[in-house]
């Protein structure tokens, strides 16, 4: 049969522009889903074609064509069951991963037949959902058989990999191997000795439901490669339900437009372990509908993370249809949310994600004028996303379509730059941004070697105000960092501005990873003690980025002298000159003195 009558997916500009502006409601997201379904089917068809050419690759399992036939039969009986499996985020991850294995002719985390054989798991899951009778053989990995979207069967096995038989009839669904037989419970949400179901979180606020799977089982739920299950305890599941419920309430009340669309684009959460003072999250363009999120008991931070990941999901869907940039992997751009230089594609994703994050904190700050943390986050991310957008708008690797996307974002966030924010959170946000950029410069910019040599020579001859000409700005960052990174000061600021801030800072501040006494003093507002503390650290390690920038921040709190200007705006030059002076014979000046000298003629 010919495919000549088929047409490509079409992304109307109205949808595209609505996505760019962070809106559009649920229907455009449904259209992205439809395109993603087609993309997965194309990958699935490609995998089956490839396997059919080399029948030996599926042994000891049957050919993947059996799975396709089962899926086709179930589609006729119960199309919704197959649609659920096709829409499952990790069907996309599996299809992408297995396609890469096929194209690169490599084995993967498991033997290739195990990865290929996961298609039998997908078909079996669809059949179980449909309540159909069937028989199939499925791969076992570390004693577990995956039924995507439903759960995992536990079979004892002597080897890392094996084959399980499943038969489903009116008598029930039974899995067996040489060692064990497991009968699934009638109610698949019930956990038994041999069956672990995927748990759900169902939240309602007003008339807005959010229903997501909390998937700690699916082998393809990770970012890069299959991973084994990491089962949450019932208590942990309840904690997740509680905090998601509160986060959902916040989103529905504070960001109703996003809350209307988000449930269409987010159907699965992968729980990750909590990280103190942080809420890391992640997603991949292959798993449309999924976000990996660390646990936090803070609903505000979780709500921001959900918006962040929803933005990635939407943009990932758009990028399956539209080229926003050329394939340019060069890590060359500053991103205020990263500690390392990023390629254009990553920066674009970051701008869009933090545009969404900004919108959330903006709405929360407007609704809760006393919420200093919300104001801080709003001020921080509106400036970060705006600064980055402007920096890359004319980038050579952006396409005209990509530039149009940025224009849509800009139309929203440009006016936000002028909105009033209370002085204290605004001041901390400005300091945090300065801190981040100066530290990034120290790690990733290398000053011009001739300039450094000229300045070292000038210092040695005692020239108080050399005229080196225009000190060139380093152009290309290096991905290899020079020195360590810490976000400790920004973590401390968040503690200070959060609930019971003073107490929280005093009680929990010392536990913030990487926080020095000087950092605590700085965020307490004791700038003299902070400066003394940083000076002491620099006596022992004059290269340390956190202390160099910290000293600049502490000094700048009392005015704008040359030393702080140099430490905050040309820190890489200060350190390079000081290093060269240390390497030569004679008395080594302290780095603050060198900074003051350089700041006297560079600013």
């Amino acid at each position, binding site marked *: 049969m010919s495919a000549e009558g088929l047409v490509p997916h079409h992304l109307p*500009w109205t949808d595209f522009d609505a996505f760019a502006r962070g809106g559009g409601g649920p229907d455009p997201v449904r259209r992205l889903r439809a395109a993603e379904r087609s993309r997965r089917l194309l990958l699935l068809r490609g995998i089956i074609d490839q396997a059919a050419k080399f029948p030996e690759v599926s042994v000891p399992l049957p050919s993947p064509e059996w799975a396709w036939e089962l899926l086709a039969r179930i589609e006729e009986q119960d199309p919704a069951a197959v649609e659920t499996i096709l829409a499952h985020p990790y069907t996309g991850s599996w299809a992408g991963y297995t396609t890469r294995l096929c194209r690169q002719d490599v084995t993967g985390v498991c033997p290739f037949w195990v990865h290929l054989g996961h298609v039998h798991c997908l078909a079996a899951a669809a059949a179980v959902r449909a309540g159909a009778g069937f028989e199939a053989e499925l791969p076992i990995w570390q004693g577990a058989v995956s039924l995507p979207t439903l759960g995992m069967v536990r079979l004892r096995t002597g080897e890392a990999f094996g084959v399980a038989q499943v038969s489903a009839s009116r008598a029930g669904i039974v899995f067996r191997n040489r060692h064990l037989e497991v009968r699934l419970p009638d109610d698949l949400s019930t956990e038994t000795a041999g069956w672990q179901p995927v748990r759900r979180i169902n939240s309602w606020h007003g008339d807005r439901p959010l229903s997501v799977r909390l998937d700690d089982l699916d082998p393809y739920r990770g970012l890069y490669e299959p991973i084994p299950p990491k089962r949450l305890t019932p208590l942990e599941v309840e904690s997740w339900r509680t905090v998601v419920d509160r986060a959902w309430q916040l989103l529905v009340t504070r960001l109703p437009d996003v809350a209307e669309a988000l449930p269409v684009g987010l159907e699965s959460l992968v729980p990750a372990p909590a990280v103190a003072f942080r809420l890391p*999250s992640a997603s991949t363009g292959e798993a449309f509908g999924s976000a990996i999120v660390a646990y936090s008991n803070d609903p505000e931070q979780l709500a921001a993370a959900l918006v962040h990941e929803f933005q990635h999901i939407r943009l990932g869907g758009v990028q399956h249809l539209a080229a926003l940039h050329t394939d340019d992997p060069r890590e060359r751009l500053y991103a205020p949310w990263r500690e390392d230089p990023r390629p254009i594609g*990553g920066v674009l994703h970051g701008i869009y994600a933090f545009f969404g994050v900004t919108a959330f904190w903006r709405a929360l700050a407007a609704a809760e004028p006393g919420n200093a943390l919300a104001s801080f986050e709003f001020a921080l991310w509106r400036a970060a996303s705006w600064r980055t957008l402007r920096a890359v708008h004319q980038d050579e690797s952006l396409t005209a379509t990509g530039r149009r996307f940025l224009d849509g974002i800009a139309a929203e966030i440009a006016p936000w730059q002028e909105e009033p924010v209370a002085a204290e959170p605004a001041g901390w946000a400005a300091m945090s941004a300065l801190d981040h950029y100066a530290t990034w410069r120290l790690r990733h910019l290398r000053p011009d070697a001739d300039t450094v040599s000229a300045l070292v020579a000038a210092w040695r001859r005692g020239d108080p105000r050399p005229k080196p000409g225009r000190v060139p700005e380093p152009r290309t960052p290096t991905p290899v960092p020079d020195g360590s990174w810490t976000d400790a000061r920004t973590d401390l600021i968040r503690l200070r501005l959060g609930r019971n801030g003073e107490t929280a800072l005093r009680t929990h501040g010392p536990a913030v990873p990487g926080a020095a006494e000087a950092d605590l003093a700085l965020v307490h507002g004791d700038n003299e003690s902070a400066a003394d503390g940083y000076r002491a650290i620099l006596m022992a390690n004059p290269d340390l980025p956190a202390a160099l920038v910290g000293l600049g921040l502490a000094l700048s709190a009392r005015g704008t002298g040359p030393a702080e200007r140099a430490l905050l705006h040309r820190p890489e030059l200060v350190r390079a000159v000081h290093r060269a002076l240390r390497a030569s014979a004679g008395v080594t000046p302290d780095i603050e003195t060198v900074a003051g000298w350089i700041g006297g003629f560079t600013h």
Partner: protein
Amino acid sequence: MQASRSGKEAGIESAVLDLGGVPLSELRTLDGSELRKALRHAAERVSYIPVTASGSQGGARRVD
């Protein structure tokens, strides 16, 4: 990828073939140059799928 030439609302015509109305039983035997092109494109693009991860420390391999 280009602006639509059809009578549809102006927009972007992707390289992803719309399989919305195609039953799986038919998709298995579907053939033709358009399909082969779409299969090739889908497979080639899996090397360029973005992975995004936020939270710059704490072990997250991140990304945007």
